[in-house]
């Protein structure tokens, strides 16, 4: 928690800054719109968190999102009847891709950076090979509803985000979450304590795949079919997780902070936009912030460790 605190301070600061520039921002509709927009990235960050805290990377989520949207469009092809079965299929595909990532990483001992880089290439190639180069078919209005519509004043995506966040927090509080963190901290000690390390890591990849599927459903619903919907999302998700104070290499950081990291990133984009810094300088500011945030975390750590060394 100590590590997680700074991100909440930064997030609160950004939200205040946005509210100063645009007082309307704090009213429920505008704020809900912000949360709705952030939802896919927050969900992806939550999924990526599971992989990172177990000591691995998942670079495949961006192209998985694209693949899922393209698959959905082709299979649904505008038909209301096909919507629910296809939604189920998307979830299965997400979990399956995660399973493959996990198995290749744990059993074949390929570094996850390379495993998921390979998956990234394979997915982005295979899906367009299947559809002949460009997305075809169409998403049904029912499918779109999840990303576009709302239940009363609350958008569906916000509700889904709340459900995902609750599930993620629950998973991390449950035995699984603890064994996952244990694996990331010291996989040898975890294994000698009876943790099935390969299985736990594979489950983390599957969760990441699932989160990509959910993010794809929301993004596809929000904005429709596009061939580049997932572009760059993997790096954004990793950035968000790291911003939340989660250590690359595993074993440290909380899922709440990772999700806060995603909100922070989204708030940052919004703020830059409000101040008219759209486009050009946005990435530069983002780069500086990531390095600064991680550096502050890293500089902090050895000092407290030094105090405790024998």
């Amino acid at each position, binding site marked *: 928690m100590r590590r997680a605190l700074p991100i909440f301070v930064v997030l609160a600061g950004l939200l205040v800054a946005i509210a100063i520039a645009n007082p309307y921002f704090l009213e429920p509709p505008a704020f809900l719109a912000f949360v709705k927009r952030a939802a896919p990235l927050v969900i992806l960050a939550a999924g990526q968190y599971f992989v990172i805290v177990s000591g691995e990377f998942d670079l495949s989520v961006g192209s998985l999102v694209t693949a899922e949207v393209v698959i959905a469009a082709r299979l649904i092809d505008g038909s209301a009847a096909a919507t629910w079965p296809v939604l189920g299929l998307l979830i299965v595909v997400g979990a399956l891709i995660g399973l493959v990532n996990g198995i290749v990483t744990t059993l074949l*001992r*390929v570094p996850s950076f390379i495993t998921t*880089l390979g998956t*990234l290439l394979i997915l982005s190639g*295979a899906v367009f090979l299947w559809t002949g180069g460009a997305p075809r078919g169409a998403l049904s209005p029912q499918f779109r509803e999840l990303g576009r519509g709302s239940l009363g004043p609350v958008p569906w995506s916000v509700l889904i985000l709340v459900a995902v966040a609750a599930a993620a927090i629950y998973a991390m509080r449950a035995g699984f979450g603890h064994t996952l963190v244990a694996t990331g901290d010291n996989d040898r000690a975890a294994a000698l304590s009876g943790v099935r390390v390969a299985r736990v890591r594979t489950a983390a990849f599957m969760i990441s795949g699932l989160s990509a599927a959910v993010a794809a459903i929301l993004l596809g619903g929000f904005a429709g079919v596009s061939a580049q919907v997932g572009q760059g999302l993997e790096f954004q998700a990793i950035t968000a997780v790291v911003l939340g104070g989660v250590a690359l290499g595993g074993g440290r950081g909380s899922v709440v902070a990772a999700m806060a990291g995603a909100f922070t990133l989204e708030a940052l984009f919004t703020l830059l936009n409000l101040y008219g810094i759209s486009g050009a300088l946005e990435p530069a500011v983002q*780069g500086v912030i990531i390095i600064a945030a991680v550096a502050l975390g*890293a*500089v902090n750590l050895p000092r407290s460790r030094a105090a405790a060394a024998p």
Partner: protein
Amino acid sequence: MTQPLKLRRVPAGNSFLRRLSADRPARAVYVALALLIVLGWLLFALDGGRFLSQENIVGIQQRSAALGIVAIGQTLVILAGSLDLSVAYLISLTSLVAAEIMAGADANVPAAVAAVLAVSALTGLVNGLIVTRLRVHAFIATLGVALIIRGALDERYDGPAGGVPESFQHLGYDRVGPFPVSALLWAAVGACAWLLLSRTRLGYRIYAVGGDAEVARLSGVRTERVVVAVHVLCSVCAGIAGLLLASRLGAGAPTVGTDGGYDLESIAAVVLGGTALAGGRGGVAGTVGGVLLLAVLDSIFNQLEVNSFAKDVVRGVVLVAALAIHARRRRTA
């Protein structure tokens, strides 16, 4: 229970081949490369083309030169246990720096080359210092620097800019027999890196730091300096690639680096060549093999006119399969 001591006599002799065979991962990639060349030759023959035609051989070299140079830099960084994701944007930046300073005039070429080397060395220094002094994981540090460079590019440039004089374009287009100048440049960079790794103290220390930083430190190696040095060298390689691309394109282009995917592809080439992502094992020879493997694969794809989506699938499969085989060989060895 007492087993006879396993005696392994080392054959005398100092041949290059022996040295190469000591680098076993590299041998694997060359075996794969040889098989792929045979396969390519067969497929070309079936398709009515000539694999070993001058155009094709030149084409393979031309296509791989820029990636090859970047990958050599990336090899150094990875060997030392680090990583550089900023090379793609740096290539774009340096291509622009080169073309803008040259501005089409021969007289400006030396200044432009100097500026490119300075800019890239500075970027590498920043990368290295962030990794060592601020203790930021190289993945995040170089990703952050990449974003900063991207911001600068987006802010300053909205398309190709500057111009390269005719004389400088010889670098990108001329060739000596079947060897393009760009490939010779790649070979030169490769030879320098090989010399660095095999014959200089810095090279030895790169392996030591990547292999076990603690052992290196106990042996008196200043590990942080080594990490900074490899980042500088890697960025300089990216700068050289930027110069080469500027000469090929006749101008600087803000997207040439990212379009080429030089960041992830260079890492892929390095690990294909048997260099361990965790550092300490591998070498330049493997990387050259990895780059050539990708280039021959491309050449076969070209001949068969495989569409780019199928190419991605094959590349992904090759990458994962190669690493799985490397991992398996190491476990059974």
